[in-house]
């Protein structure tokens, strides 16, 4: 099979993860810091030795037998958080490094380098010294450098997280071109990257895959806490009812979707800004457990429920930790669904 199939087992980091990337796929790996995401990338690249498992790239096993293939024989392209351009080479020299390493002559390497630079819209930078580039330019050159080596798998390890907001746009555009028609593994914390680049998403937590699915599934109907937090949703477990869900924490929410037949285990998701908070009324009765400021809003944590209200509303409610509060979520804002297997 073209693409990547990796079963990565790293005992000292407690990682045991299976990752599959199809020929035209970009699979995003998301998860909390320290979950083992970068370790997976390093293991695939051959920079970290497997304790068990196997790695197949482009149909051939590069790891898992007695002698794992060294990184330079794996045909992986790696773009990390830092562009790490070779300071002693020009931009064209950097991008031509891969072709030259695989035995191509100067002119051929230059052609390959120009082609790769064109893909990331950086032809004009060819003769520059890497030290003179901006962060976004350097990262686009790093992408071109990985592409010029014609990798069988592209590994993108938080490629935009070290950049400022303006630079991210151009680098995302370059990434979109880079991954077209190429199996790619994208480690990221950026929801925009997931939405614009990934076809599937893997949620990794504490060294295990806790959720996987298409991008729409994971972002819209998350089943793991991290997956829900990534899309900013509140995830509630419960039991299906005729109109929605009976929450494990007590009370019932009506949903715009429902799970048949009633009685099955299911999940409900809503966005905290949709919740309506009042001192009384028909909402679910909960106790305020924490209050935190959040981008011009006040986030109210009331046991397992979360609601975002404006600062003015928060002041009107006069809530404090320990107060009782009623939280209602409009029926159109609640999605009730079964967890994916």
């Amino acid at each position, binding site marked *: 099979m073209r693409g990547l199939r990796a079963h990565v087992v790293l005992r000292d980091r407690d990682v045991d993860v299976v990752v599959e990337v199809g020929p035209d796929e970009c699979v995003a790996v998301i998860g909390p810091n320290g979950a083992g995401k970068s370790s997976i990338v390093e293991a695939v690249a051959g920079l970290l030795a497997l304790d068990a498992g196997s790695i197949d790239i482009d149909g051939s096993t590069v790891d898992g037998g007695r002698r794992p293939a*060294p990184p*330079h024989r*794996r045909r992986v392209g790696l773009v990390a958080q830092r562009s790490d351009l070779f300071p002693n080479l020009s931009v064209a020299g950097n991008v031509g490094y891969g072709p030259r390493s695989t035995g191509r002559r100067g002119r051929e390497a230059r052609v390959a380098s120009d082609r790769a630079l064109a893909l990331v819209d950086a032809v004009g930078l060819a003769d520059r010294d890497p030290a003179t580039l901006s962060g976004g330019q350097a990262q686009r050159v790093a992408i071109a450098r990985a592409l010029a080596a014609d990798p069988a798998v592209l590994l993108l390890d938080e490629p935009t997280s070290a950049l400022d907001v303006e630079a991210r746009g151009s680098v995302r555009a370059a990434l979109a071109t880079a991954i077209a028609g190429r199996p790619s593994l994208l480690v990221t914390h950026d929801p925009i990257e997931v939405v614009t680049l990934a076809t599937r998403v893997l949620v990794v937590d504490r060294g295990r895959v806790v959720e996987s699915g298409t991008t729409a599934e994971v972002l819209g109907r998350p089943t793991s806490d991290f997956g829900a937090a990534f899309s900013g949703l509140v995830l509630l477990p419960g039991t299906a009812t005729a109109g929605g869900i009976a929450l494990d924490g007590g009370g019932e929410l009506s949903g715009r979707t429902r799970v048949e037949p009633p009685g099955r285990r299911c999940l409900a998701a809503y966005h905290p800004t949709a919740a309506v908070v009042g001192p009384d009324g028909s909402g679910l009765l909960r106790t305020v457990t924490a209050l935190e400021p959040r981008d011009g809003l006040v986030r109210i944590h009331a046991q397992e429920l979360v609601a975002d209200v404006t600062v003015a509303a928060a002041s009107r409610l006069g809530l404090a930790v320990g107060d009782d509060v009623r939280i209602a979520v409009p029926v159109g804002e609640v999605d009730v669904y079964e967890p994916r297997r």
Partner: protein
Amino acid sequence: MTSRSGTAAPWWLPVPAVLGGLFVVVPVLAMVGRVDWTSFVALVTAPSSLTALGLSLGTAAAATGIAFVLGLPLAVVFSRVRSRWVGVARAVVLLPLVLPPVVGGLALLAAFGRIGPVGGFLADHGVRIAFTTAAVVMAQTFVAMPFLVSAIEGSLRIGGDRLERIASTLGAGPTRVLFTVTIPRALPGIASGLVLCFARALGEFGATLTFAGSLEGVTRTLPLEIYLQREVDPDTAVALALVLVVVAVVVIGLTSIRTGARAAWS
């Protein structure tokens, strides 16, 4: 005067600092003052002086070359391998830094002298090392290589091996990575290491005298010549010493130009 916050040095610190500076500068200036300028050129260009100078420059250059060829791999290994044995190996390799040179000379003699394990073997095959020019080069390499190794290792440790890892994913094998990434990255350290190593080799005295002796034209380098002349002809000794001072100043100048250029870079 602008007041700087927090980092001001104690008021009394300049006193020992100036004393320290004078302690180095005064003897050198005093020696320059002793130079007999009317006969300086004649003394320095005397055949025995020129022979010693030529021998010194030649052997120091050879020692620096050998130290580079052997020391660069050592530095790369020390900076890469994460084993506690590397710490032990590093301590052993850097031993000549703290060892009295005479002791180093004795150690070399023990190994490469006619009755030493290596020297005995070589002697059986008609090769003699002790008390030859080769011995001078070996003595200098022995004492000077640690400077090169630690300078290169220091520059390799900056920034870790991230560039090497990237290069390997781009399809470059280990040898190619060494020559296209690691060595270019270590160039600042290599340059200062070479300069330090050359300077140390040029000034080598104790190990050379012990292991190589003092045969004119064969093993009598400039420091040995200066030491000998000091008893016979102090004027020549001072004149030759000044030559070594000038070489040292040039060497220091080379390093500081390089450091300045690096500061301007970043």
